[in-house]
């Protein structure tokens, strides 16, 4: 038993980190939120070229997967850098279509990062994320998968970089029958894993930035990070994240539904708690959208609730085998 990332996994995460740092994601997020997906799409293509989407697809569809642990590493980085767009949804769409034999013949494009997909599973949400910026909008209703003809009005989200919109009804029926339900369950499992990983990344970024701020901001003649009330809150943030991390990678190894749900709860709650702490410790400057911190702050809550609310996930944990 060696429950640690391999050297390859570490190197992969480091290379994505370097690429995303150099790309300067805050500007890309702000453009995406303003309805200009151009810079985001360019970054998307680079993520595709780095192999991120290939991790979710089997070789038969030009993927290298399924490699859930590697995917988790990649999505932690995407969260740490607040990469905008329907990344999770594209992974879920990839899994869904691969399970169904790629009825729309879209997988090679998705895997390469040339095509952006989004989807709405009726059991999760009536909205597809970022449908306005996606090339492919899928809708799963009951045991049917539809290639939607477009999307309805874009809704306002707590995170301006998330642009949910309902898929339009009708379009092309891609598949129907019990196989759709099984495929949708698999897609949802991968969405849970990827969202959990993104949450962890968001939480880590919030903690890093807040620790840096607490060391540098002085009040009463001392860095605020030397006050115990501040220290202890940050220590608790680290605790939450560090005990969520092994659940995430454990779930990536087993891919069991209860484990995935446990990882989703723990990462979602830890990241949200990190956001609350980050805001409190930054004080008023944290409550502004000028500071880039806001890009992560506003992500934590929607990610916690996307693809399986904490309550739904907890019920799923208890439905599985006991610990």
């Amino acid at each position, binding site marked *: *038993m*060696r*429950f*640690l*990332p*391999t050297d390859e*996994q570490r190197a992969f995460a480091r290379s994505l980190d370097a690429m995303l740092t150099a790309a300067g994601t805050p500007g890309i997020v702000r453009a995406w939120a303003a309805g200009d997906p151009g810079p985001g799409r360019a970054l998307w293509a680079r993520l595709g070229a780095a192999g991120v989407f290939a991790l979710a697809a089997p070789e038969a569809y030009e993927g290298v997967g399924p490699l859930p*642990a590697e995917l988790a590493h990649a999505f932690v980085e995407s969260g740490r850098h607040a990469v905008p767009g329907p990344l999770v949804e594209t992974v879920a769409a990839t899994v869904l279509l691969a399970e169904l034999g790629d009825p729309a013949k879209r997988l090679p494009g998705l895997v390469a990062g040339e095509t952006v997909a989004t989807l709405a599973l009726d059991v999760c949400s009536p909205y597809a994320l970022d449908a306005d910026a996606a090339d492919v909008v899928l809708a799963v209703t009951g045991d049917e998968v539809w290639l939607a003809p477009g999307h309805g009005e874009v809704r306002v989200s707590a995170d301006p970089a998330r642009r949910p919109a309902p898929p339009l009804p009708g379009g092309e029926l891609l598949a129907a029958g019990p196989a759709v339900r099984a495929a949708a369950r698999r897609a949802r499992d991968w969405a849970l894993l990827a969202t959990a990983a993104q949450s962890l990344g968001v939480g880590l970024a919030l*903690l890093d930035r807040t*620790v840096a701020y*607490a*060391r540098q901001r002085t009040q009463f003649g*001392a*860095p605020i*990070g*030397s*006050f*115990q009330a*501040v*220290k*202890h809150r*940050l*220590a*608790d943030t*680290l*605790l939450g994240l*560090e*005990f*969520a*991390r*092994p*659940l995430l*990678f*454990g779930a*990536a*190894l*087993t891919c069991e539904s209860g*484990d995935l749900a*446990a990882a989703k*709860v*723990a990462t979602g709650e830890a990241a949200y708690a990190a956001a609350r702490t980050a805001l409190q410790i930054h004080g008023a400057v944290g409550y502004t959208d000028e500071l880039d911190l806001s890009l992560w702050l506003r992500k934590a809550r929607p990610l916690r609730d996307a693809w399986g609310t*904490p*309550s739904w*996930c*907890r*019920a799923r*944990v*208890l439905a599985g085998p*006991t*610990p």
Partner: protein
Amino acid sequence: MDLSYTAEEEEFRAAARAWLRAHVPPEPLPSLETAEGFAAHRVWEGRLAAGGWSAVSWPERYGGRDADLTRWLLFEEEYYAAGAPGRVSQNGVSLLAPTLFAYGTEEQRARVLPPMATGEVIWAQAWSEPEAGSDLASLTSRAVRTDGGWLLSGQKTWSSRAAFADRAFGIFRSDPGPAAEGRPHRGLTYLMFDLRAPGVTVRPVGRLDGRPAFAELFLDDVFVPDEDVVGEPGQGWRIAMSATGNERGLTLRSPGRFLAAADRLVRLWRERSEASAGVTADSALRDRVADAVIGARAYRLFTAAGAARLAEGADLGAESSLNKVFWSTFDLALHETALDLLGPEGESADSAWAEGYVFALAGPIYAGTNEIQRDIIAERLLGLPKGRR
């Protein structure tokens, strides 16, 4: 990344399971915090040792099985899953023994470890003093040089199970010089002594539940021979601190016990849900039960990662503070959830849950309070500036 066990590890697990199935007492033993329970637990430790399972991680020559950390964790999972009794020899096995492996002499190991493994000699930890709690280095009990050894005097307190134990280990001020110059961590010596030696008075102190589980020790020129000094005189602080990592970290509270407790909690919740529609409908309670399962899994996996890092030669250091805060907070939440499920029955002090709850209440206090652990996490793991202590 890998969570699977080798065939040899699975064999080890199967052997432990088979032995435990054949030997674990069918009825729970009385609480080890009582005289009667203490005696019953001693017998159990002896049986465990006869089977070769009382200290699996020790070298074979002292009665162990040379088990590595992964095997030890497997053993603990089996131990608690089998409903086996709590370990009355815990202080010795998890605190003194690792210290002797690191700093003791071969003579000390050969003399101290085998009777520790069989429960013939049960050890108490004598660190805290009335005026030295979190600020342990301010301790004032003295060790004064004498012919062939040392004379101990002063007062120790909160010494777990010292009311019934045989021997104790502690730190004493052997050189008052450095402390007078404002360096209290220097000039301390780590010693082992007999709780029945002339000059020792043991006064049992009732815990929150009234059980005389810990004791105050009054020491009045208690003679300790040189061979009972652990490590170099004057190096007591460093030696003691190397063991607190064990105390806070995983060897004091293995994931096995929390996995077993979470499992029992889920069973309780299922029983109660079947019996009462109110419980079924209470989603907040259900969520807390789920959090117990999630917490136990998180701790197990966190520990697995730590074991893997240790196996690669890393030193966990301040990370054991993460463990400590996590398990103590988690244990308490788990027991509170059980009491809420039990409702009015939870009050009944002789239920295993109520006893576990009282024990869990102390978790955030002993082994370094959680406030002190959070300071360590903030300063050593996050790099925040030191504040006033």
